[in-house]
């Protein structure tokens, strides 16, 4: 079974998976490996990173030196196809005109979705992160704990390949021996930050990223992941052999033609397709889920994005993994006289408690890095080091004016020059030009550092999405309207980030840029970090949640949500790894329920 066109779909499938990113990719992989007949629907076009990725193109070989435009908001070579903050013909709206109450929604219309360009940062939620309400009385507890998800973190890390180290720090879980790949050596600026930040009490340790620092062990891992399934072992072993180790060049956001980093299109989908159990239909924009008279889902109706025609498809189970907000939209648009508020919405909570990650950044210039002897600092196409949240005890003791933590990602180094490579030189040298400018550009190149906080957001009643009462997309389907508000916990956290980053830069002997002590200006708009989660939160009580602990909706047993929607909180940890772990866990449950005849 392959990538197909609308006319080639089967009369019925076991499972329809809506979306092909982290959640959809993992779901299709797990199910197809176990013999389930799966149809994956992707709203965007087919996409092949092996052929399409710009690996060695320089910025100068792209229009406008590769810089950002409305067509390519993350720069020309970013892998995103037909996506960004706006997708033509597919608007979304904001309930408020207040600039502080906007939600930015990043979408990608391509096979693999946002996994093609993501930062590959793969941090496990810790035990505190599943029980935040129990810890500080704010937000919501998950119906599961770290121990429930840990085995799936292990499996996902082994499957996709994650580099990192085990440091044994608070709420920053270790992986079992032999699961992580070795971390790359720290870059010069990362080492300097490590030494100087230590004096401030900040641990700078290897970050975890889904990049193969060495080739995966194709002899050992498949048997661990699929112990009773020789066919799956054989297919996965081959897929692992087809992936090369990182060759320490090019940015991961471009995607990876040698399959050295994780993206659904190079890691989940090839082995899933090789089972023969997966059909993938691109350009299929799901509009709604169809129901029978017994309250069970029967399939979906989708719009062919090329022809604009609507088609119906049938399956025993529907798994939504369209992105948290898009899955909400599908449930709300599945309206009928029997379900006037959409599907799975007896709690009224579909679309409620949407979250993003708190983001704020500060940069500076480090004189010590000036005139450093040149060497290759490309590395793994992203960060090698980071700072996990280090003030859990101070927070618990009430010494901070915000409830939740953040980790610090940072950029240093002599990376490939872009449009702004020497922009700061004029200001630093009172307007030099000519030979003097060239000399100063050499001196300052690679001396700038930038620190970015990524923090926990507490779900709140003011941050949600619903259907816009009037606006429709180009196919006539109602669009989402976002409502957004940061609480003081997030803005104060952003203020703390600013002060901390200024302290680190100062400790590195550098001069920080002007900081925002209030956090109100520094905090990025909602959605801007592209860690959109929530909207179909999981829980123990059908009146207070949309799904159970397996992402299965309380109201309709054969609808699952396997993207970030069921997140009951949003830890500082980047959500993708957790989305995959939960999708694998939900898929195991789905398989067992199918075998029992419950689905």
């Amino acid at each position, binding site marked *: 079974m392959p990538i197909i066109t609308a006319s080639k779909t089967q009369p019925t499938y076991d499972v329809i998976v809506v979306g092909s990113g982290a959640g959809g990719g993992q779901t299709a992989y797990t199910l197809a490996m176990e013999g389930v007949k799966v149809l994956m629907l992707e709203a965007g*076009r087919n996409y092949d990173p092996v052929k399409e990725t*710009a690996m*060695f*193109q*320089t*910025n*100068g*070989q792209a*229009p*406008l*030196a*590769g*810089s950002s*435009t*409305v*067509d390519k908001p993350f720069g*020309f*070579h970013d*892998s995103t*196809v*037909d*996506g*960004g903050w706006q997708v*033509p013909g597919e608007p979304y709206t904001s309930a408020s005109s207040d600039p502080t109450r906007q939600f930015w929604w990043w979408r990608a219309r391509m096979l693999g979705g946002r996994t093609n360009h993501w930062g590959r940062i793969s941090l496990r939620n810790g035990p505190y992160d599943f029980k935040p309400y129990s810890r500080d009385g704010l937000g919501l507890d998950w119906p599961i704990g770290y121990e429930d998800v840990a085995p799936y973190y292990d499996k996902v890390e082994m499957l996709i390949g994650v580099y990192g180290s085990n440091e044994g720090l608070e709420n920053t879980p270790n992986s079992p021996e032999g699961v992580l790949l070795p971390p790359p*050596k*720290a*870059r*010069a600026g990362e080492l*300097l930050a490590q*030494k100087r930040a230590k004096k401030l009490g900040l641990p700078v340790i290897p970050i975890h990223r889904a990049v193969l620092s060495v080739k995966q062990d194709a002899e050992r891992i498949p048997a661990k992941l699929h112990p009773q399934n020789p066919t799956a072992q054989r297919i996965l072993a081959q897929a692992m052999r087809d992936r090369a180790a990182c*060759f320490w060049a*090019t940015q991961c956001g471009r995607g990876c033609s040698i399959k050295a980093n994780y993206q659904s299109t190079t890691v989940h989908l090839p082995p899933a397709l090789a089972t023969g159990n997966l059909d993938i239909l691109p350009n299929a924009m799901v509009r709604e889920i169809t129901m029978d008279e017994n309250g069970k889902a029967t399939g979906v109706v989708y719009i062919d994005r090329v022809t604009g025609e609507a088609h119906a498809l049938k399956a025993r189970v529907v798994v939504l993994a369209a992105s948290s907000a898009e899955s909400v939209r599908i449930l709300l648009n599945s309206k009928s006289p029997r379900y006037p508020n959409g599907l799975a919405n007896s709690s009224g909570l579909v679309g409620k408690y949407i979250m993003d990650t708190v983001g704020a950044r500060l940069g500076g210039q480090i004189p010590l890095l000036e*005139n*450093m*002897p*040149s*060497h*290759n*600092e*490309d590395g793994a196409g992203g960060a090698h080091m980071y700072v996990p949240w280090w003030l859990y005890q101070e927070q618990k003791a009430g010494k901070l004016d915000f409830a939740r933590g953040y980790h610090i990602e940072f950029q240093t180094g*002599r*990376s*490939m*020059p*872009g*449009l*702004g*490579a*020497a*922009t700061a030189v*004029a200001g630093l040298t*009172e*307007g030099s*030009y*000519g030979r003097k*400018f*060239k000399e100063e*550009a*050499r001196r300052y190149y*690679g001396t700038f550092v930038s620190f970015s906080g990524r923090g926990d957001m507490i779900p709140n009643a003011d941050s949600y999405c619903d259907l816009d009462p009037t606006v429709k997309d180009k196919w006539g389907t109602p669009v989402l309207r976002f409502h957004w508000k940061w609480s003081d916990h997030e803005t104060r956290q952003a203020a703390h980030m600013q002060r901390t980053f200024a302290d680190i830069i100062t400790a590195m002997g550098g001069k920080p840029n002007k900081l925002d002590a209030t956090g109100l200006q520094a905090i990025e708009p909602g959605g801007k970090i592209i860690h959109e989660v929530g909207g179909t939160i999981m829980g123990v009580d059908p009146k207070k949640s949309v799904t159970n602990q397996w992402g299965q909706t309380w109201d309709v047993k054969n609808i699952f949500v396997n993207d970030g929607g069921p997140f009951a909180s949003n830890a500082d940890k980047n959500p993708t790894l957790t989305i995959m772990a939960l999708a694998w866990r939900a898929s195991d449950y789905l398989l067992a329920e199918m075998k029992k005849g419950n689905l």
Partner: protein
Amino acid sequence: MTPSDSSSRPRLDRRTAIKWMLTAAASVAIMDRAAAAGADTTTSKAAVGYGTDPELNKIYKPGDFWALSFTAGQRRTATALCDVIIPADAKSPAASAVGVPDFIDEWISAPYPGHDKDRALILDGLVWIDAESQKRFGNDFADLVAGQQRALCDDICYGPKAKPEFKTAALFFNKFRDLTSGGFYTTPEGMKDLGYIGNVPLATYDGPTPAALKHLGLA
């Protein structure tokens, strides 16, 4: 350049001239561009961008997606200014030798939001700098000797210290310098000049060299 290039040089209209000579405003919003005698400072309406799904695994050059639009006279002045900002030295060639004027032309001809403002600033600035060169030295900027070019650029190279009558010209110079350096340092010659080493496949990533570690006191 042929003599006709210089004789067809666009002249700064009086309103624009007054604004450029006298204003100390921090922003430029020059109206009445049609009067800028042949220098079309509006974005070409026919131009479209590269869309949301351009072929990425490909090498492009200015002009591939939208037409370049410098007149011969604009190009001549821009080329001269590029090379005052990034002249040849022992390490690398001058900006014009590696195609930077084409990059600037691509930038100001691009059909994207924001580029129209840069277009107005750059094209008006090129007219201004020739007018100023004529006023002071009786020649176009490109025909001045190096000392004359520097005397003029010294007055406009740094906004915060520029005299009030040069504030707007300083905005132009700053933008032109940003584009020149951005174009230059993204070429192979420019990347090498900065000491960028990379974009090559490696078997191992070895981290900083001993010399780099020593430089940082981390050896």
